[in-house]
């Protein structure tokens, strides 16, 4: 069985974000799929997820965090879509936010 980190680091969370992006890509046409990288834009300038895809991504991300780290988080709180500070801007900002959220809960 994989060891489950009590407090996941940014590097622990980033692959989980990629997994959620991979799942989301299956709902998208081949030429519109998102590339798994830290600067992959999820929401904001350069992003092209519609509201339904964003909803699906949030739900999927929360489920994966629960499964992987045993933490129940809510990604719709804390102004997620703020252009300056929203955690949904990129894969990297999201991974950092989740790492902090889980740390706060621990």
């Amino acid at each position, binding site marked *: 069985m994989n060891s489950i980190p009590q407090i996941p680091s940014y590097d622990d969370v980033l692959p989980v974000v990629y997994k959620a992006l991979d799942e989301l890509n299956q709902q*998208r046409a081949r030429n519109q799929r998102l590339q798994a990288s830290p600067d992959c834009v999820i929401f904001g300038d350069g992003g092209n997820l519609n509201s339904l895809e964003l909803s699906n991504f*949030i739900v999927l991300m929360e489920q994966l965090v629960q499964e992987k780290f045993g933490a129940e988080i809510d990604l719709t709180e804390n102004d997620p879509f703020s252009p300056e500070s929203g955690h949904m801007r990129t894969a990297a900002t999201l991974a950092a936010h989740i790492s902090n959220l889980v740390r706060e809960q621990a």
Partner: protein
Amino acid sequence: MNSTPIQIELISDFNLQTLANYLENSESMPAMSAKVAPFGQVVPTLLQEHEGAKNVFAVVWTSPSSVVPTFSDALQSQPVNETVILSEVRLFAQHIVTAKNRFRSLLVCAWTLPRWQRGLGLLDLQKPSGLRNLLLKMNLELISALQDVAGVYVVNPQDWIEAAGKNAHSPKSWYLSKTPYSAEVLKQAAFEIKAALRTVLGDARKLIVVDLDDTMWGGVVGDVGWENLRLGGHDHIGEAFLDFQRALKTLRNRGILLAIASKNDESVALQALGQHPEMMLRPEDFAGRRINWKDKAGNIVEIAAELRLGLQSVVFIDDNPVERARVRESLPEVLVPDWPNDKTLAASTLLQMDCFDTAQITSEDQARADMYTAEQKRDVLKTEMPTVEHWLRSLQTKVTVEALNPSNQARVAQLFNKTNQMNLTTRRMSEIELVQWAGHDDRRVLAFRVADRFGDSGLTGILTLDFNGSDASIADFILSCRVMGRQVEEAMLAVAVECARRAGAEKLLAEFIPTAKNKPCHEFWMRSGFDRDDAGYRFTWQVAREYSRPSSVELMVPANGQHYQSLRVKEAAREVEPTAAS
């Protein structure tokens, strides 16, 4: 399969756009173009009237309270009248029946409840006021109301929900996007909907070619002897092999043919099949076999040809990855599933394959394996007779002709859509479209059943005629490959000519439309005796001339529902006219 996207409309009271996205972007076949009807508008969408959507499929997926309003009261623990609920279910079913005229086929999802909706808890299934008690009755009522409606299939989304696991129902998805299910459920739904459409489109596999050693039983029979094979007994692996054989037998009982391709000494393998006391499958269960040391791909080609099946009908099962890779590479049309190393997974791996699903189950399907056994006996007789004419006469072939009617239209539609080789035009029509086409006074659809001394091949021929003044045209001339070459073709033409004569036609016309697979049909028409144009595609018969029924075939019509009477061609044609049939 055709790569033109299949159009599908998703009708629901919740948001199915994610399902549409999965259907359009999944790479599994068929390719699809999905449209989501305005959500929350289920009944108005079903009752909408517009033309030109006949090639569109539909999925109707609703929550029970949206289309059965009284069920909402039950959800709030208010007393409800079960009779009222069931009448609302029947009304919804009636809306589905109305809508089916607009669509090629409809998949109607049975109703489910989320796991967190506990209703009466311990008593929920048992008490009449329990939500699950009511829901079971509602689903049974829905199934009962729709079970005989052509082109409508009630499917069970509970299977999709279970496959998605504990996160299947997502309250958060509901609040964010009005989708009660997680994306995983919708992905599974897309997978199953595509499988269902492949079934409706008639792409079912018909033949399993199976290896023996370490696939049907444990061990190499040539090394250990049949007495020491692992099969049954008090051994978990032996039991697993026996269950795999039982699964194969189950499919055989559904009409899927079995054949063997094994590298073995034939006598040794047959001894095992015949003598092992726990062997579930015996030699007579297999419609064909190649037990030798030759290349399996070549053996599979020979078996398929012998059974008159295309390679696209074949599934090959072998425990050896090298053999699987070889067949995959040389015969890409053959489906070669990955096979588990763990033998305890073999039976479930086979039974979960959707490629054997069919849109209708007819008596012909269920008897198909026995029919092929009879065909083997015919072939043996053929080798024993001095001439083909002797053989044809010895078969004592009886051809029964009947008009299209409610009792045969499912089988006629099935044959219509899956016959390739003896098919004049390869026109495809759903059961609904066929009945509509036949509804015109100047058109006739005749079905032919074929039997001989070795058995009943069932409904295996279709002839459709279109009358237009002094011309009569054969719109479709279809015969199952199971009975090709027994002069049934000539008997059908004799009936066609007589029907044309009785309708006042002077000429009977047929136009052959070539496909990659109907060369045998063209060869028959070229020797049919009909006049033909220079290209050899248009055929004509002057109706004043009788077309002789072959002497080896006896022509019959059903009479009094039960009994059959032998007739001449003229009498047969008269008997199947609309006035006589009614």
